[in-house]
């Protein structure tokens, strides 16, 4: 009775806390400007559910697949643990008989693969030092975050194995609460080490691991909103709202069209509200679209973008991953500011551009779309970079001098170089 009560309190408490936290994430995302994005279920199923973009790098793809499939399917066992927790049953689904035995055995194999995957990931990060996993933008919290996630998963899977090992030992001894159920292809190798323990110790171990797993799940759930691990949830909406247009097509700024078009068509009707003028481009997170902000929360900092960026590869400061991480960091800072000031943002004199992202990073971009192509959850760092360029050029006239030269050539000569427009067809008569 008491443990059922504790379980219910934990369940309700953890769910309520998660609801509050995720609502805050949602509020932060909706600080972004509105933009019309048509959702596409097929893309979501292919890219997020089907992991299609992961496959270009086979080793992390397979390891991640272990963890992903394991995580999704082991949650079926967690459902049973919830039922057991509330109704004080033991292995409530064991009435399924042979199928149940198969499931439990299958989950053990998955749990083993999850453990293996996480262990290799820890090695890649902390011993082998795979380049994209040890870059300087990961110093501090990002690195700790990654290790916390991997260690927690290993601890939770280990708890599952120990629980099953104690359980099967008790089953063999004919303990009446521990009815014979399940198959244990992995934990059978742990069970022999437990034979010298008495029933009391085994029961304590089984219960302890059960609670550890449950508390771990509740804890993990509430860790998500402050972690890069939030990608396990947001990968789905983020890929659902994927950009399906050609990657080379950059957005047309309607506010600019409203200024330019009347020169060509006197009957032109403006598309934007003249009484509510918007800033050109992006200076701070509120100037971004909600999709850009959803991108930022969906990033798990894998660094595929940065490792394929031509400028980063050649030692420049630009890192598309850092742009996305900076966006989330600034957005969370803005969110905390709003919380502190009773729901209103009070200017803190800071901005995404300048305080987080430097001009040097922004001007280095080749707009080559390698980062966009690489992202396994269809995040677009390039759009954020371009929007900041727009801000610098159109609001501050603050672009590198050579680019100003190019602009005036295009404007005056119709070409980025200083040639006379009348010479445009001279090539016909040259050899």
């Amino acid at each position, binding site marked *: 009775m008491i443990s059922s009560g504790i379980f219910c309190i934990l369940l309700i408490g953890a769910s309520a806390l998660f609801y509050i936290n995720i609502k805050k994430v949602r509020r932060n995302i909706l600080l972004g400007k509105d933009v019309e994005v048509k959702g596409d279920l097929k893309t979501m199923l292919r890219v997020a559910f089907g992991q299609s973009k992961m496959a270009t790098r086979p080793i992390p793809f397979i390891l991640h697949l272990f963890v992903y499939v394991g995580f999704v399917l082991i949650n079926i066992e967690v459902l049973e643990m919830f039922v057991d927790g509330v109704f004080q049953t033991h292995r409530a689904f064991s009435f399924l008989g042979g199928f149940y035995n198969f499931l439990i055995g299958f989950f053990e194999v998955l749990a083993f693969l999850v453990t293996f995957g996480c262990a290799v990931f820890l090695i890649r990060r902390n011993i082998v030092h795979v380049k994209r996993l040890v870059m300087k933008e990961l110093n501090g919290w990002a690195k700790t975050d990654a290790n916390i996630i991997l260690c927690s998963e290993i601890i939770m899977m280990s708890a599952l194995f120990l629980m099953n090992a104690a359980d099967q030992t008790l089953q063999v001894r004919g303990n009446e609460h521990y009815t014979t159920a399940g198959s244990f292809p992995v934990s059978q190798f742990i069970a022999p080490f437990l034979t010298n323990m008495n029933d009391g110790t085994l029961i304590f171990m089984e219960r302890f691991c059960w609670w550890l797993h449950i508390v771990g799940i509740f804890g993990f759930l509430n860790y998500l909103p402050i972690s890069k691990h939030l990608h396990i949830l947001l990968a789905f909406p983020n890929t659902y709202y994927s950009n399906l247009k050609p990657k080379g097509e950059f957005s047309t700024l309607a506010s600019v069209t409203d200024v330019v078009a009347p020169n060509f068509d006197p009957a032109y009707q403006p598309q934007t509200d003249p009484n509510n003028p918007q800033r050109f481009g992006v200076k701070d997170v509120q100037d971004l679209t909600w999709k850009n902000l959803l991108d930022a929360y969906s990033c798990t900092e894998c660094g595929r973008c940065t490792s394929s960026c031509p400028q980063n590869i050649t030692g420049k400061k630009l890192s598309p991953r850092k742009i996305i991480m900076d966006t989330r960091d600034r957005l969370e800072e803005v969110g905390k500011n709003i919380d502190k000031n009773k729901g209103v943002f009070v200017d803190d004199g800071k901005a995404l551009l300048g305080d987080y992202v430097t001009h040097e990073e922004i001007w280095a971009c080749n707009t*080559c779309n390698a980062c966009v192509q690489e992202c396994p959850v269809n995040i677009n760092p390039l759009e954020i970079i371009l929007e900041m360029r727009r801000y610098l050029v159109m609001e501050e006239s603050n672009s590198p001098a050579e680019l100003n030269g190019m602009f005036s050539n295009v404007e005056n000569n119709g070409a980025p170089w200083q040639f006379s427009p009348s010479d445009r067809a001279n090539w016909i008569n040259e050899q």
Partner: protein
Amino acid sequence: MSTIQVKTMAEFTASGEQPDILFWVGCSGSFDDRAKKITRAIVRILNHVNIKFAILGAEESCTGDPAKRAGNEFLFQMQAMTNITTLNNYNIKKIVTGCPHCFNTLKNEYPALGGNYEVIHHTQLVQQLINEGKLKVEGGEFKGKKIVFHDPCYLGRANDVYEAPREVIQNLDADLAEMKRSRAKGLCCGAGGAQMFKEAEKGSREVNIERAEEALAENPDVIAVACPFCNTMMTDGVKHFNKETQTKVLDVAELVAGANNL
């Protein structure tokens, strides 16, 4: 080399005719000495297959691509609307470009501003001509030569055109080699995003050196490109490694024109 036949849209209109396709030359193809050779190669191919084409000549102006990538949306839209006015006045329906940047901008970014055209890149046109049997390229001077193709970002990733230039190269009976980073994983030459017009930020090396090194690792006779900016960058990169005698940097159009002794 044969002399080339080129008419402007103004000339077509004066004679009451309409061409089948407009050849959008682009700024690089019009003014850069190296790129002008590519432009003439494209024209030789068009002449060879008797396509009725026109250029805008002095009426052509920058598409606005470098301005847009650099964040100057005002200048981009000014350029775009000027060009759209010209194109629509001439009732242009179909455009072939000599540059992936013009291709991308005309195809993807002009429709929102009232310019709707069927736009293809010159490598796509050449491949169509080969498929239709109008152009033969087999067994020319590039037979058996090792050719590595460098994907332009604005043809490849930006518009998912990966196969057309490769099919053309294979039709030359050449030995098509691939760099480690190719197709969707292709590495930029370093010119895009208006980088062509400014110094690079501080780093360990230039992007074009990185890319040229990768291409040269295949020991190719030719590095084939399909963009005048890539051509500049890769040519400079090859010179950096003093390999310009062993490895030529040529546009796909030049390969096709060369194979036909045009």
